[in-house]
């Protein structure tokens, strides 16, 4: 880097600071756009949450209302629980697939990997509708079980936590696979080979070498899954419906139907 900046000053004869500044010039358009359409709006929103009635005095009133309202607190609890479950399910399911894609030399690699990522191309609503067909009262599972005579009344798998967790796990799984894959590919394969040479079985290689080394990847995939499911809207709206409301669906309801009052404002900022 220093070489090229020296070369620049030498050929152009400009002062050093000028060529330094010129380096940052290409950053101007993207930074400007992010400032205007992201940083300033976000700042405004955080600011507004402290001015509940649009008044000039700052107060924590909207936060107080959120944290003393049972309805919102229950929503917060449901959201946290749901996101935690999704994070665990995603990581558990993504790990074998990612491990296989990172280590296998077989020609099944592409066969496994392509369908694991491809659903990302179809939209969230489409995939969620697939689950609705499978899980709803007269859906796949219930009709199948009733036809087999195992149950007489339909089980209620959708419109509750179970349905939403299943749907969200499906939506977020490709992201989990990708993030674990990067971390597994970063593990030096020579370590595994030397352990195998020393007589370790595949299980103990996995347990004592691969798993400890991929802990950062596991943590990051869980965090990713958690944040994505905490802010997901379409899946909880379709699969959870009125029976299972999370913060995201509650915020949309407030913003789109009810009001622009102080309560949703505090929701928007304090929950994420």
């Amino acid at each position, binding site marked *: 880097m220093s070489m090229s900046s020296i070369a620049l000053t030498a050929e152009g004869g400009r002062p050093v600071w000028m060529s330094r500044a010129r380096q940052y010039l290409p950053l101007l358009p993207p930074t400007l756009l992010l400032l205007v359409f992201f940083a300033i709006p*976000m700042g405004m929103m955080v600011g507004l949450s402290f001015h509940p009635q649009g008044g000039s005095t700052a107060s924590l009133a909207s936060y107080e209302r959120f944290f003393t309202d049972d309805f919102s607190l229950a929503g917060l609890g449901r959201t946290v629980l749901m996101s935690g479950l999704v994070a665990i399910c995603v990581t558990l399911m993504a790990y074998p697939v990612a491990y296989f894609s990172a280590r296998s030399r077989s020609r099944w690699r592409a066969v496994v990997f392509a369908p694991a990522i491809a659903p990302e191309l179809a939209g969230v609503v489409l*995939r969620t509708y697939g689950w609705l067909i*499978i899980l709803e009262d007269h859906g796949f599972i219930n009709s199948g079980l009733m036809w087999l005579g195992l149950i007489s009344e339909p089980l209620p798998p959708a419109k509750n936590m179970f349905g939403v967790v299943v749907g969200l796990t499906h939506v977020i799984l490709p992201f989990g696979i990708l993030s674990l894959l990067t971390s597994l590919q970063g593990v030096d394969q020579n370590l595994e080979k030397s352990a195998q040479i020393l007589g370790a079985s*595949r299980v103990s290689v996995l347990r004592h070498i691969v798993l400890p080394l991929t802990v950062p990847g596991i943590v990051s995939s869980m965090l990713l899954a958690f944040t994505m499911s905490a802010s997901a809207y379409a899946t909880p709206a379709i699969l959870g419906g009125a029976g299972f409301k999370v913060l995201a669906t509650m915020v949309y309801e407030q913003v789109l139907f009810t009001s622009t009052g102080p309560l949703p404002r505090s929701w928007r900022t304090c929950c994420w």
Partner: protein
Amino acid sequence: MNRIVSGLFWVSIALVMAFITLPLIVVMAASLSPSSRVTLVPWEWTVRWYGDLMARRWIDPFILSAQIAILVSLISGVLGLLAAYVVAFEKCPGHATIMSFLLSPLAVPQIVKGVAIVLFLSSAGLYRWVGTPGLVAAHIILTLPFAVRMIATAMFNFDKNLDRAGQSTGATKAQRIRHLLLPIIKPGVFSGMTFAFIISFNNIPLSVFLVRPGKPPCPSPSLTISNTASIRCWLRSMSPRCFSCWR
């Protein structure tokens, strides 16, 4: 022991694969069923829902969303290229900080971004921007981090010795960028732009806030998210059946 473990491993992979593909197959099958509810009737098939898609009210939002997504992916590609050049190729001082600033929209949920942008536009007196210009701006904010990250990865992997070789043969900076850097990182740029296109084309949570009320008309009172251009054209393109049931 080893055999059991590898057997379990294969079973787990097969189960995950089944989990991933099952709902997609079900939706595809359901789109061929004649009932106007979203259900599976395994013994009756029809393609009439696909014929219904040719109606104007599906075609128009489809074209609008495609136009927005193309515009968004082009702008994100150019901006991402500029940003990634400084951050990943030149690696100027502070590149890590700049990179995390460029990726920061990822940390904020789409609802919050959507509300914030509408709030900003209305208080800045730009309310008439709500609609296509606002959607384009918001989608760029949404897709730029992905584009930057993809292009930056491609640039990190670019062999600097090639650039030095070009320099020693007397190529100017512009020539080196045009004939060395750009051709080599082209796959990264394309994948970034493809990502941007898909994200913008499929987006609902952010678009809800920026679609002008009443234009285009909302076909579904039962699900408010349907009043975005994206979702309608998207359902139009992917799964006609889901939508027909809301009429």
